[in-house]
């Protein structure tokens, strides 16, 4: 019988990293010690704990990472509470990859890139950032504006400090919502910080975060003179199948799981306001 | 009656007593009326309908409508709808001050399924003619006795009296004896446990878990039903096995016990024609026998015998003994 995408594969949780008080990053491998499958930056996979449920998560590791696959997951519901109890050596199931990736080999080639992320919204962008860093010659300047509630809520903080900030041609601008002891950096919400930094209009923007943050950030970018065609984002709606058949993640005629999760902002503008 | 209701509604809209009217809107055929809220005399004139097919109980909509600001809503309630409304009032689910109630008499409502069961299809129009319905169809004209196509709940009507109203249109009626109403339950009680189990298995196995019975039920007003709540541990979207088919209906019957006014909406809406009212009526009959005659919705202050303790209450042993008999 033909292979069935709804039947997942068992994988081993190789490592669990605590990123923030409510975000953990899980490294998974097949039992043979290999990366479960190949993907493109921005694509997602369904992860499940049998008996608990299944959910769609963006793949946080870069496709250029040939050794393993990572998922950064925020604790916010039934399944994610269980995922946060996983320990190295335990198994989960995965299936995928699903969805439309960021156009790293098309529209983004040769462009100056501006990544804007809020909170766990860095997760899908991290795959792109590392993909770009590993194919540095194919892209222009990289600017990363990243904000979180507090210093402790900045996901991948170590990687940001040790690797991104030291990468040639990469500028990292961090911000947190409120003053905090031990924080000498910028304080304020992401949308405002973007306006303050007044980035170059020629950049292609990749923005991801809570819906409200995306909304205000895009409004600010528009004010600065950015066109919707320059802005890429990712959407998140309730999903079950991941393949555009179960019928619940649509915005108008588009299914987020299949036609997204990555959309260009002008494409979203064509869709009804139901997300 | 339709014209009287329309005129009264227009007058109450005009003098500002109410700002909206809940009633029934004309459909495509003669029988497919839809509950609707009317805001103007023009809308009433064009679409308001009241006839033998206006069976839908509008009292549950009054939970939502009475919560709105912006004036009172006029509702026309048949006697059984008024019992439902009163029960909702007792449970503090409607804001009485936002509702103006007109009690309307009811001679029983027609069940289109019964007309269709008589082999009549291709319906183009249904007219009342004395004691008959004259049904014009693409295949010719048919005539049926109205009394032969009444809904089951109307054949078993408990009361022609309105337990609550602000004004009445037409004559007030009286309570009716319960023997007809409980005949179906009495028949189930004469069955052996196995026969009864087989009867319910055969009926409940038809369930498609569309939730129509629950969603239409004026006693089912939980903000979040256990069957919809993934955290409840028993949320089910489908009757995956016979046990689940049974449990959904049994749990629901238990939950509305003592609060069900026997309005019969559950059986009316069931696409599979499962006689769900029999479950509820069994509870009503048992309550009557164990605690004395009680009608949910009788008045808005009555204590439900299942939730109020008296020293004369039937003890568990008594209930068990009677169950054995």
């Amino acid at each position, binding site marked *: 019988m033909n292979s069935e995408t709804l039947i997942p594969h068992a994988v081993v949780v190789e490592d669990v990293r605590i990123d923030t008080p409510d975000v953990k990053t899980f490294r998974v491998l097949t039992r043979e010690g290999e990366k479960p499958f190949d993907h493109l930056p921005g694509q997602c996979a369904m992860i499940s704990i049998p*008996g608990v449920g299944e959910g769609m998560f963006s793949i946080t590791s870069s496709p250029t990472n040939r050794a393993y696959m990572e998922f950064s997951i925020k604790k916010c519901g039934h399944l994610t509470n269980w995922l946060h109890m996983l320990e190295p050596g335990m198994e989960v199931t995965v299936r995928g990859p699903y969805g439309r990736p960021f156009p790293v080999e098309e529209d983004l080639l040769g462009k100056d890139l501006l990544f804007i992320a809020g909170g766990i919204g860095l997760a899908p962008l991290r795959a792109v950032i590392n993909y770009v860093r590993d194919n540095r010659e194919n892209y222009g300047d990289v600017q990363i504006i990243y904000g979180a509630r507090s210093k402790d809520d900045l996901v991948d903080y170590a990687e940001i400090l040790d690797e991104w900030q030291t990468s040639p041609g990469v500028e990292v601008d961090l911000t947190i919502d409120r003053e905090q002891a031990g924080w000498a950096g910028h304080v304020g919400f992401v949308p405002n910080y973007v306006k303050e930094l007044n980035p170059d209009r020629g950049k292609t923007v990749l923005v991801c975060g809570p819906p409200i943050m995306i909304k205000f950030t895009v409004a600010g970018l528009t004010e600065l003179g950015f066109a919707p065609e320059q802005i890429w984002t990712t959407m998140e709606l309730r999903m079950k199948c991941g393949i555009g058949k*179960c019928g619940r993640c649509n915005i108008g005629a588009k299914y987020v799981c299949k036609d997204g999760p990555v959309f260009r902002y002008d494409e979203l503008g064509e869709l009804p306001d139901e997300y | 009656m339709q014209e009287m209701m329309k005129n009264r509604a227009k007058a109450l809209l005009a003098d500002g007593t109410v700002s909206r009217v809940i009633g029934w809107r004309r459909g495509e055929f003669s029988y497919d009326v839809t509950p609707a809220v009317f805001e103007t005399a023009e809308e009433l004139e064009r679409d308001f309908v009241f006839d033998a097919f206006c069976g839908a109980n509008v009292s549950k909509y009054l939970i939502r409508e009475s919560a709105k600001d912006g004036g009172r809503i006029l509702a026309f309630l048949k006697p059984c709808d008024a019992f439902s409304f009163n029960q909702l009032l007792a449970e503090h689910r409607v804001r009485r001050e936002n509702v103006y109630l007109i009690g309307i008499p009811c001679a029983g409502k027609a069940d289109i399924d019964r007309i269709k069961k008589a082999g009549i299809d291709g319906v183009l129009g249904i007219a009342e003619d004395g004691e008959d319905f004259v049904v014009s169809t693409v295949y010719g004209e048919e005539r049926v006795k109205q009394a032969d196509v009444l809904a089951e709940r109307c054949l078993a009507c408990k009361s022609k009296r309105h337990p609550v109203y602000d004004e009445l249109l037409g004559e007030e009626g009286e309570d009716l004896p319960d023997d007809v109403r409980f005949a179906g339950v009495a028949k189930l009680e004469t069955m052996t446990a196995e026969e009864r189990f087989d009867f319910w298995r055969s009926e409940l196995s038809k369930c498609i878990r*569309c939730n129509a019975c629950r969603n239409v039920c004026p006693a089912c007003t939980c903000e979040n039903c256990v069957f919809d709540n993934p955290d409840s541990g028993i949320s089910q979207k489908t009757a995956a096995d016979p046990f689940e088919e049974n449990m959904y209906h049994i749990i629901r019957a238990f939950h509305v016990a003592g609060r069900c006014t026997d309005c019969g909406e559950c059986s009316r809406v069931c696409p599979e024609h499962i006689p769900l009212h029999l479950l509820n009526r069994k509870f009503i009959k048992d309550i009557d026998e164990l605690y004395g005659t009680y009608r949910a919705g009788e008045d808005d202050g009555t204590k439900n015998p299942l939730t109020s303790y008296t020293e004369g209450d039937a003890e568990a042993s008594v209930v068990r003994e009677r169950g054995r008999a």
Partner: protein
Amino acid sequence: MKFLKRTDLDCFLTAAAEHRTIYVPIDEEPNKSAYRRYKPRTPVSQGLKTTRSAKDFFFPQTENLVGFRIEDKKIKILDPRTEHEDFAVFGVRACDARSFGILDKVFLSEPVDTYYQNRRAHGLILTMTCRRPAETCFCTAFGIDPASPEGDIVFTETADGWYIEPKTEGGRDFLAPLEEFLEERDEGGAEEAKARTRETMEKLPLAGLKTDSFGGGKTKELFDRPEWASLSEACIGCGTCTFVCPTCQCYDIRDYDTGREVRRFRCWDSCMYSDFTKMAGGNPRLTQKERFRQRFMHKLVYFPENNGGEFGCVGCGRCLASCPIHMNIVKVMKTLSEGQDEQ
């Protein structure tokens, strides 16, 4: 043309049932039928339509997708799929026959749903023309001819039996061992019966229902129409329309722990349900208006937009007959079309 006499139907089906499982509509009560496995001497329903559609044969209300067993802290994946038995569904009407094509567009598009594909590959559709269409019928609005249904074999019904036309290789193979029950008849009778069906359709109250206002690309015109509020106001948010609908195919996936293993199953779901799009972080369709709109926009705009203009409704009229408050796609179409004219 081949003809099967009404009096020979039982022998015909009995013989056919020796080759594969046959499902036929059986009356449960007057004017209410359901598909059941055929048993000799069981009268086949004369009714127009089953209460539930025929989609159950290919997309059952609930089915196991995969099982899991934990052994030595490892997850063992259990594939429950087995080759489906050969079967045939008798008495399918033109509306339901078309619905399979619509379901195919969902389930057989990449990535193929192998559970559906498996059943589809083993099922023959024996369709029947409609002799007595009901007032709720409006299949012609979607270009369906109830006198000439799709399917593997078409049975054109007359007073004393059926003209039989195999349309596919599978249909011809099915009939090959059953020739002895058929006789040869002049096909004039078939044409007469078809003409009568088409004539009746024109006299029905929903004849002439217009689809012009709908179709792919109409999202902008229709999504924010104010009429959605009044159309949806009486909707009780049950799933009756969805579950009796031959083309509704949304599903949920859930896990069930039997104690020995976890079964991951899927079951029909309804966009009319409040939890359909509910997430830990919120719900994009907060009120019944949004849920109601989704169902009709999907059938009348989104589906045609993604499928070459084909509507996601076949006009079977089951939702008209079953909706507890008699709100349905016809009322939606008429109301929105009228509003369109006024604009």
